């Protein structure tokens, strides 16, 4: 698949939140205001991009040559946990202002399904290194788009009268469901029709 094809696939057609449901926990938890949503989105995009490359390298550099493919899950989650720790330390040293903005979200990313998800999807689809990197960025961008849209919606919902039982999480899920309905317009035929396959 072409690089633009991968980009469109993971941002729109297979949007990580609205279609694949990966990263629903932060999507519900951190989408109360758009500022923190953007922070979470940027942090996730950064980690998915780096994790895609790192996990690809571990799989093809370490696991596959020695026939240890069954250790994929355990090694990927360790790579991601170490990576998140490393990213946290580097950002704290290099850019204290960025650290201040992202700091609280970084540790949460280890248990974000989206990161482990994209690492495994890259291997399952047999992407090469650059394709994995693009897929990682695209997955993160798709996540960011969904969470920022949701945060804006929720800021509006705050001022709307909603039935008591629906306040908070239930109405968020229902709004996300309606958003997912809109995203159904992007299906795999989009990739074929645009000639990106």
């Amino acid at each position: 698949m072409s690089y633009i094809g991968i980009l469109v696939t993971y941002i729109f057609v297979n949007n990580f939140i609205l279609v694949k449901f990966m990263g629903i926990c932060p999507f519900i938890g951190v989408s109360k205001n758009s500022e923190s949503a953007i922070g979470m989105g940027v942090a996730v995009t950064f980690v998915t991009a780096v994790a895609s490359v790192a996990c690809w390298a571990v799989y093809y550099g370490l696991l596959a040559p020695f026939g240890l493919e069954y250790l994929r899950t355990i090694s990927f989650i360790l790579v991601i946990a170490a990576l998140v720790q490393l990213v946290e330390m580097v950002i704290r040293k290099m850019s204290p202002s960025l650290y201040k903005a992202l700091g609280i979200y970084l540790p949460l990313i280890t248990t974000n399904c989206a990161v482990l998800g994209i690492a495994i999807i890259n291997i399952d689809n047999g992407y090469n290194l650059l394709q994995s990197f693009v897929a990682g960025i695209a997955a993160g961008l798709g996540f960011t788009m969904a969470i920022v849209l949701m945060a804006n919606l929720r800021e509006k919902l705050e001022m709307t009268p909603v039935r008591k039982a629906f306040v908070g999480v239930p109405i968020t899920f229902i709004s996300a469901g309606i958003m997912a309905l809109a995203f159904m317009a992007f299906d795999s035929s989009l990739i074929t029709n645009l000639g990106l396959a």
Partner: protein
Amino acid sequence: MNTKELTKGIFKENPIFIIMLGMCPTLAVSTQVWNAIGMGAGVIFVLLGSNIFISLLKNIIPDSIRIPSYIVIIASFVTILEMVMHAFMVDLYNALGIYLSLIVVNCIILGRAEAFANKNSVLDSALDAIGMGVGFTLGLTLIAAIREIFGAGTITLINLGDINVVFEVPGLSESPIRVLALSAGALLVMGYLKAFFTWYTAKNEKKAKEAK
């Protein structure tokens, strides 16, 4: 035996509807009742294994590296589960796909390790794991049943290739509400169910207050 640890996960602290943990697999695999049961069984296995192990090792694991240690223990059990399922239930393995590996990052398992297993005895941790796992399975099956009955007009209880138990719901199997079987349907069903449980808990609390 402390039955409170066993029963709290099923309704009072139901992982899906009350504590809201482990949403990703819940929404993604709830297209068929059989997938939900398979996923639930997998989560019960991993949760039981990791809770027992973490409870046994709680005095050995240093506090500062406890999260990575828990993740390694959980990932080991997930790997065992993946291999066993791949060997004996290929259809289910394919249907669950990537979400089987993603049990590693299911917040319920790490959450129970952190909130319960590292403070309590082995027996209590095992009971807690079974209770939480069963609660998760029941919640997941409920969502799957709603989505499959209305979205496809069928109920797939067993789907093992040779052995199939599939019921068709008359009237619905010809013209199902297809949107419920799609990803948007999962979010909508979850939203309405959560609203129902909020309403139900609020009503019970009100009743209890009036009884006082």
